[in-house]
């Protein structure tokens, strides 16, 4: 089968600054048709033509799944990141024609839940914008706890408060407000599902406490906002396609493979979906596994790597691609 996702030709219909760090982008289909229906928690991969280089970044859809006349995403500017969010903030203007993927959902609501308890940190709020809209339309039971640095960086906190009132609780770091997690987790009705999206530290904290308090793992859902980490450049040989390529500091291994004209599969580009898994044929050096897909044992074995987020330091690396 061909790899990657089906593409959509869109035009940027609006660009709206939300606060000092976050900007919202609106996309419509170039042919004027409706966009595909999606489900709360889905993301699209946005293709950015940045000079000679193509960047592909995943962003959660934050509009209501009931309205497919446009898609909206919110991008937090990362001044020390690899440049995708900066490109969005600096170069993307209304009228620009872009290509995005069909929606993919790796952070789906469990529709069996009697209640949906949502915890968001910072820009991790975006998938919950769509999920709360979906649940509210069906009369679903949800409660959202949202932590942000300051009130002015509480992206969409006002919108959410206005829409859902007391179902939204806000916590501001600068006022030293913190989610009383243990109390929250131990007072939920049976049949509650927990969803968390935010920085890795927050996700780990919530997952650990939930496990310690006896939440079954299948009721705990999380989405990492794991952007590929920069690192030292390294060389890779691709055995099947017979190419030797260099992975730059700011480039992910997956991006370098794509730049070499090989079309590897992917869905999330964040180390969680498993789609880009690649066999290691030989290596002399050490892996920096940043993914959440492979088991510890896989990591130790040195036989597999997830090129979307993981890196390598050492003398030689040969992959089956």
């Amino acid at each position, binding site marked *: 089968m061909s790899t990657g*996702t089906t593409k959509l030709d869109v035009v940027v219909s609006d660009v709206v600054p939300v606060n000092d760090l976050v900007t919202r982008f609106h996309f419509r289909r170039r042919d004027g048709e409706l966009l595909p229906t999606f489900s709360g928690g889905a993301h699209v991969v946005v293709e950015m033509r940045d000079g000679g280089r193509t960047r592909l970044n995943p962003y959660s859809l934050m509009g209501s799944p009931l309205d497919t006349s446009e898609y909206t995403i919110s991008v937090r500017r990362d001044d020390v990141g690899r440049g995708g969010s900066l490109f969005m903030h600096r170069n993307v203007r209304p009228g620009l024609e872009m290509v995005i993927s069909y929606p993919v959902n790796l952070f789906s609501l469990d529709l069996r839940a009697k209640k949906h308890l949502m915890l968001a940190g910072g820009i991790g709020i975006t998938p919950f914008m769509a999920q709360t809209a979906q649940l509210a339309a069906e009369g679903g039971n949800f409660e959202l706890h949202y932590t942000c640095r300051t009130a002015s960086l509480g992206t969409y906190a006002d919108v959410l408060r206005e829409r859902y009132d007391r179902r939204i609780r806000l916590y501001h770091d600068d006022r030293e407000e913190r989610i009383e997690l243990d109390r929250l987790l131990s007072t939920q009705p049976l049949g509650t599902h927990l969803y968390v999206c935010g920085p890795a530290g927050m996700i780990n904290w919530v997952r650990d406490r939930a496990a310690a308090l006896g939440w079954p793992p299948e009721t705990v859902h999380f989405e990492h906002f794991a952007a590929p980490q920069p690192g030292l450049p390294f060389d890779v040989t691709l055995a099947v396609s017979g190419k030797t390529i260099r992975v730059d500091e700011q480039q992910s291994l997956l991006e370098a493979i794509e730049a070499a004209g090989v079309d590897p599969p992917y869905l999330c580009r964040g180390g969680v979906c498993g789609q880009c898994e690649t066999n290691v044929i030989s290596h002399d050096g050490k892996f920096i596994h940043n993914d959440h897909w492979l088991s510890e044992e896989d990591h130790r074995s040195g036989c597999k790597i997830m090129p979307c987020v993981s890196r390598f330091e050492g003398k030689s690396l040969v992959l089956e691609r």
Partner: protein
Amino acid sequence: MGITFRKETFRDDFTFRNSPEHIRRFPFPFHEDAYMYAVNIEPHVVGPKGSVLENLIDVDEHYVAEMQDRALVLAEDPLRCQSLPHMTLAGWDLLELLMEQQSLGYPEHFTLTRDGDRWRWINRPLGIDDTFTFGDTSTLPYGPMEYITRQSQGDFCILDQRDGNLWMDAGMVTTQADWSLDFDIGMNFFEWHAPVPLAHEKGIFIRALKFLTNIQQGKPARRLNWTMTVNPRLDTSPENYHKWGPDRATVTPENVGDKVHLRVELQSFWRLPRSNGIVFPIRCYLIKMDELLTQPKWARRLHRVIRDLPDELANYKGLTRYRPTLVEWLSKLDDGSATSPGFGPD
């Protein structure tokens, strides 16, 4: 234009037949003179005009008769259609998919008009003209899945995706080859595949599950599967084994051509957009040996396939009892000449 729907039965007097055009479009599943079990999945894209792949959801001359047979099965056994409470949204997804595809492929027979949430569905072959509110179950005579699958050929399994697995949590299953929704409902992928022999190695199943959980919206996939059935019975369920099981003992050299049917399932796999579930439509095509022999290539090839089938597989497919009779009969149609590559007739 339009399809001429046949009046026929899949039980009692078994008047099911394929017209000559339908024989030629039969999805013959063997592309070479031998059969090997394989995960033969490919993208479900539109195929040649006149083939069963001309549209992504195929409607053919058996449509009306199949829908009548389904209604009879459901009247006797309502458990052939089940949907766990959290699957209603997926049912709406399926309703949209089938209404869209059927009206797109067969505008002379089906029309879908939408005005926001107010939808009107006209199904001319079955004489239905309903207006309803999309998403509001109280505006339809059945739940959304049951409503639309009483009007769509083939079985439908709707799977919920969670915890990295797929769960058979809804379905309309009345034309199955010996399995039961009532038994499998609520099971996950590994549980409902537990009885398959020869493909034992768990590896195949892990790979298949991985593939299926990665099925993307806008990119459906498909595969063909096959078995054989004595008499053109659509409903060969375990619940009804007492009816169709004994048929296998009735095959004689005289009636092979009329009684023995090749049964091909076209399975497709689609991601559903609102629920993020997956649906497998399993479309069943039947052809009797007398019809098959009108395409000499198919008859020659089927002889070689059935003759050389490993015993375990023949057993699994339930052919053991009548295989010698069938092979003997088919051998007379095999002059030993080479068969051309590919599925199609010559």
